[in-house]
């Protein structure tokens, strides 16, 4: 996956780049409008991560420009700290695929990128097998133990999302904050150490345990959870 990262803030640029490279993305960098414009004209990308407030131009203009280029089929994700409400609407109107207000979680960013990829290539039956014979059907949003005829594990929407997120980032420790942000999105939640995540995890484990061993969800003390 070829990504163009357009971000003028050097430190942030560095962090995002590092994270994406660790996640096996090929990252190209642009720090200014003109640099980005040039790269968009020459190369084709799978993703463009676009900061709107560039020193020499408006990021939205880049989006508009590259939507006119036929060969540029990149999915655009807008990253902004401007806090301007119109930006989101304008961006999505212009054909951006997603919008993340700063500060965002890098994990959330890569999850959104994965979701866009799935949408784009129309992966029909995306299944994840995990644990001892558990199968998650991402499209139908079901979890079963054993074959397709076995009964569903009765997970609520939030429990399913939580499990899915853990499985997407398998063998990586996810903090409660990262999980919470994914589940509740950008809502201003004022209790950062909410125990809702813990309760959800407990319920997921309990429900899965009725079908098979559920010890693949590990608690990492003081940090969070990990699916192995």
């Amino acid at each position: 996956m070829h990504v163009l990262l357009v971000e003028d803030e050097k430190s942030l640029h560095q962090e995002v780049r590092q994270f994406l490279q660790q996640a096996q993305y090929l990252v190209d960098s642009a720090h200014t409008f003109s640099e980005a414009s040039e790269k968009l004209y020459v190369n084709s990308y799978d993703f463009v991560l676009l900061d709107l407030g560039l020193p020499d131009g408006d990021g939205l203009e880049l989006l508009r420009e590259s939507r006119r280029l036929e060969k540029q089929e990149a999915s655009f994700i807008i990253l902004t700290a401007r806090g301007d409400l119109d930006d989101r609407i304008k961006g999505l109107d212009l054909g951006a695929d997603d919008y993340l207000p700063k500060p965002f979680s890098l994990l959330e960013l890569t999850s959104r990128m994965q979701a866009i990829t799935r949408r784009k290539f129309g992966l029909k039956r995306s299944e994840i097998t995990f644990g001892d014979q558990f199968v998650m059907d991402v499209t139908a949003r079901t979890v079963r133990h054993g074959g397709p005829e076995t009964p569903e594990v009765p997970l609520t929407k939030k429990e399913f999302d939580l499990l899915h997120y853990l499985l997407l980032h398998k063998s990586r420790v996810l903090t409660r904050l990262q999980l919470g942000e994914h589940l509740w999105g950008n809502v201003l939640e004022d209790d950062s150490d909410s125990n809702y995540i813990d309760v959800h995890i407990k319920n997921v484990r309990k429900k899965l345990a009725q079908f098979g061993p559920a010890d693949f969800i590990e608690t990492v003390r003081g940090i969070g959870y990990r699916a192995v």
Partner: protein
Amino acid sequence: MRLETKLGLFNGLSKILLVVLGVLLIPPIVQRVAVVHTDQRLREKRREVLSLIARDGLATFLREEHDEAYADYNILKQEYIAITPLGPAESKLEFPAERFFEEPRQVDKAVEDFRILSYVAPLRTTKGEATPRRYRLEIGSSLGTVELLTNTLRALALWVLVAGAVLTVFTDAAFAHYLLRPLRELITRKLRGIRQPGEFSFERLHTDTTDFRRLDDSLSALMRQLQASFEKEREFMSNVSHELLTPTSILQSRFENMLQDPTLPETHAQQIVESQRTLYRLRNTVRTLLLIANIENEQYLRDASVSLTQTVHDVAEELDDRRQQREITRHIDLAPDYVVPRANATLLHTLLRNLLSNALKYNHEGGEVRVLGRPQPGGYVLRVEDDGPGIAPDNLPLLFDRFRRFHATGPKAPEGYGLGLPIAKTIASFHGAVLRAESEVGVGTAFVLEFTA
């Protein structure tokens, strides 16, 4: 009452007053005029008679059989002339030489009221007579005739007055309507039609009335100023959010990257998670303040009609997992539903989410959350009630205080109620609603949202 209506009313009333005044004043005036006019005519007749006597001598008028007196009247008995001889004057003051009065007189068997000019003068019977004798010359004009004239005049005057009044009432109203058109336009098109300064139309008013011109110009100038300061504030907020959120973003990303390192010792990892949590709090504070500032700065549109029932159910659905985790029952009853006109759907959702999530958070396990909506005179009231521990009366006023709250400490401090309430309050007033709290320690708390229709 509208200016035009007031002008119209004043106009109508003043015209009515004028007519009443006319009805009261015109008859005596007309009467007076008629009398003066009659008197003048009588004087002219006297002059004619005297000149006739001077030319032909009195003898031609007098007849023996009438004892040297003379009387004559015209056929319709409207006027008569009588000349009667008088004895020698007893004193000079006996009569004024000329006198006007009204008296009945018998003329040819009929008695009628006359306006009479009585004149005493020395006259010569024949031209050559040496000493003139005293005669009384009486000329009368029938009062019936005078009255007829008076009535006609009076009626005419009244009709002209009424017609004039009615006509001017209409022309005045029409003129006022025409004159006030720019003002009407200013109010309906420029002021009433807009909900925020951004919608103000700067198109100049078509008028040559200086006052309206000035009003329009100063309004436009004020609005320009307002818009400019809104714009400045918007820019400022945009810069502030950029300056505050970018470093936060850098830190958050850095923490995430650090946590990725598989060689990271566990103690360090825990410290990073702690730092992440602190950063999260900072981030939320910044975002709350930005959100409040943006709402107060009118950056959100009120472009939707939002059903409260729908929103409450959406929010309740969203929070259902938390509710079930704590085995709290919910009771939603909005009878009837209320559709908030000119609302912002996202903001209303946030408002109700904050209220409901608080009601869940501060409830005891197994309690109940009630959302009750009822119409009330002049609006609608929505109550979100919980069975929680309640809030001490001292702390109630501090609940919505966005700055004090952040520093409040102590177990019973309202700090626990979180960032949600100042936001809720701001969103409520953005929609012209009032948010207040009622609470009884040990019984529960109710947040009351009052919409005015």
